[in-house]
């Protein structure tokens, strides 16, 4: 096959919040920058974010970055790296105000400042009382953010390759990254993007689970591609589940519904949260509510013919309240659960929402791997930011609104690092190996030539069901173990996928088969890492690591205060230390403590 070569100073894969923020930095510095995206930039998943972006501006209540840093470290259950967390929290005001200058229409206070709202896990004075830290643009925060960044990029002459799918990284024998191969969907042609710097900003892989709040595009391409190229994946056992996704569909029902008085009930109609969290009840934290729901289901008190969900009941609220205070919820329930929530409760299940782990980076956005005794040795020419990356600021559990902040801060810092490396002359255009496109071409040839193979849909469904059952909200040693071997079998099946349509042009079936390769890498990383981590921490909760006096919340700092690294090659694990030391010498480390709210 004919392979076209294109050369750029930098290629960025992904045009969501992280990719666009990084691209802006490069284009404004005059670098020739290509941005690849599977969809039009403003259709990236960042649009779905409604809640807001965190910054300790202190416009609505007193606040400072030290408090934000504390909340984030605690939220991460101490698995987050404190240098990166300090960096993110200190930079928050700068990147949010910058965005305001780019034209982002934030909600305003009466005196014209950015209005801020409270959000779970964010506090004043080291956990004392809730703080108003979330900056929003009505219920369109992510959408407004993406539009502001996109317009700015157009002005800066960023070159977009829309509806291009990156397939594989190009690496030389020294391990340096020289660009990517990509497929133009319109023609099916494969090109090489040869570059000095490659930045991954491909978003999360929430579609590895059967029940997911993520749109179909979140297939973890960057994460899977990196794994195939020999880059280890960090902390992939940590996934945040949202308690209330519509059963069967996954569509998110916001926390606001319980805030307005929504009640969770089991098959007997019992308000079961009274047993698990007598004070906060249905308003307890996300992980507590999710686990309680799963316990109800596992113990046979679930609803429906398969007893596989619980009910979110708002029938006691007045129709006016529902229409006025919870706009959109009624439509979601009618459309995806087939019930009018004014008259009947909504079936819900804990649903995969956010990927905490990813491609390991430092706070400068450089991808780092263990090499020659250094656990964090930068890979030449490779950078990553956003949900596909693990900086690691979210550790074992992300706080709401910290993800949009992550995109802005690390999108920008990865861009700044690339520009600095470019200007210092250390980013050279290295020679391409002769077989630069070989791996991608072979993958496509295999797919086209496959006879008597497996259906993509069937393999994906098997993966999703296995992950949901074996590595869900609440984890059990035997199920995890069984899940590891099941996933290995499914990964084998994924090597024999077959598609009926072999045409080159706009071949959605082929795209989905290629996406599946990436999902499988992520699913394997997740279940293998989860099986191995014999403690409970943040979002990773094991039945055999319960809350005891010696091990509060089941956390075992003596043995498990470390980051997981999973290698695709050999399906093997390694570990590296957590950085408990902040970036600045005068900032104190947040000491280990039990995570209670």
């Amino acid at each position, binding site marked *: 096959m004919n392979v076209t070569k294109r050369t750029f100073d930098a290629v960025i894969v992904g045009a969501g919040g992280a990719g666009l923020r990084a691209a802006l930095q490069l284009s404004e510095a005059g670098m020739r920058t290509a941005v690849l995206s599977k*969809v039009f930039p*403003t259709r990236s998943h960042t*649009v779905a974010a409604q809640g807001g972006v965190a910054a300790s501006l202190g416009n609505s209540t007193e606040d400072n970055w030290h408090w934000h840093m504390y909340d984030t470290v605690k939220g991460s259950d101490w698995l987050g790296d404190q240098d990166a967390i300090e960096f993110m929290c200190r930079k928050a005001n700068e990147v949010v105000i910058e965005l305001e200058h780019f034209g982002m229409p934030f909600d305003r206070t009466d005196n014209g400042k950015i209005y801020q709202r409270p959000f779970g896990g964010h506090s004043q004075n080291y956990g004392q009382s809730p703080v108003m830290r979330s900056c929003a643009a009505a219920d369109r925060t992510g959408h407004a953010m993406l539009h502001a960044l996109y317009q700015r990029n157009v002005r800066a002459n960023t070159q977009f390759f829309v509806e291009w799918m990156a397939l594989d990284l190009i690496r030389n024998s020294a391990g340096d990254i020289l660009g990517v191969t990509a497929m133009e969907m319109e023609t099916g042609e494969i090109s090489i993007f040869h570059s000095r710097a490659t930045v991954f900003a491909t978003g999360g892989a929430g579609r590895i689970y059967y029940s997911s709040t993520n*749109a*179909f595009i979140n297939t973890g391409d960057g994460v899977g591609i990196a794994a195939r190229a020999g880059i280890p994946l960090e902390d992939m056992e940590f996934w945040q589940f949202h308690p209330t996704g519509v059963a069967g569909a996954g569509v998110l029902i916001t926390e606001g519904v319980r805030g307005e008085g929504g009640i969770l009930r089991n098959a007997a109609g019992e308000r079961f949260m009274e047993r698990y969290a007598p004070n906060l009840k249905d308003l307890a934290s996300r992980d507590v509510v999710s686990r309680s729901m799963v316990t109800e289901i596992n113990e046979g008190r679930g609803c429906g013919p398969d007893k596989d969900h619980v009910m979110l009941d708002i029938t006691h609220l007045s129709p006016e309240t529902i229409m006025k205070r919870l*706009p*959109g919820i009624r*439509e979601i329930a009618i459309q995806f659960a087939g019930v009018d929530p004014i008259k009947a409760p909504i079936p819900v299940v804990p649903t995969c929402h956010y990927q905490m782990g990813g491609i390991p980076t430092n706070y400068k956005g450089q991808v780092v791997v263990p090499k020659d005794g250094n656990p964090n040795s930068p890979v030449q020419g490779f950078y990553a930011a956003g949900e596909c990356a693990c900086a690691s600021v979210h550790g074992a559990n992300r706080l709401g609104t910290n993800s949009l902040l992550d995109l802005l801060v690390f999108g920008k810092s990865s861009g700044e690092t690339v520009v600095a490396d470019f200007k210092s002359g250390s980013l050279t255009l290295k020679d391409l190996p002769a077989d630069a496109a070989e791996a991608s071409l072979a993958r496509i040839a295999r797919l086209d030539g496959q006879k008597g193979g497996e259906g993509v849909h069937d393999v994906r469904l098997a993966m999703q069901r296995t992950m949901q059952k074996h590595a869900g909200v609440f984890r059990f040693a035997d199920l995890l173990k069984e899940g590891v071997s099941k996933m290995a079998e499914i990964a084998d099946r994924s090597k024999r996928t077959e598609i009926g349509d072999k045409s080159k042009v*706009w071949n959605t079936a082929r795209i989905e088969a290629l996406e599946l390769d990436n999902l499988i890498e992520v699913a394997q990383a997740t279940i293998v890492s989860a099986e191995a981590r014999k403690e409970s921490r943040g979002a990773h909760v094991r039945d055999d690591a319960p809350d005891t006096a010696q091990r509060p919340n089941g956390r075992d700092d003596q043995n498990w205060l470390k980051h997981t690294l999973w290698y695709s090659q050999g399906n093997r694990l390694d570990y590296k230390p957590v950085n408990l030391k902040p970036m600045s010498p005068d900032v104190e480390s947040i000491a280990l403590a039990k995570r209670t709210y």
Partner: protein
Amino acid sequence: MEAKGDKAVINRGRLRWHASRHALLELDILFRRFLDEHFDRLDDSQLAVLEELLALEDLDLWEMICGRRECRDARWNGLVELLRAS
């Protein structure tokens, strides 16, 4: 004649991809059902309307399907109704 046929095939392929990946899960689910049940039967004028709908912002399209926002163009009503029923 053949060239025109090719063009039509390409156009369908492009619209199928556009219809299958959105920023919102809500739209992905509705469009998956719509693609399975209706897409192959759409005529040229319906395809033209679909193209216009897919050029809208996802959040606006979703609000239209929910009935919280009016269709700007009366020609859109039929497909929006089909999507809602998908």
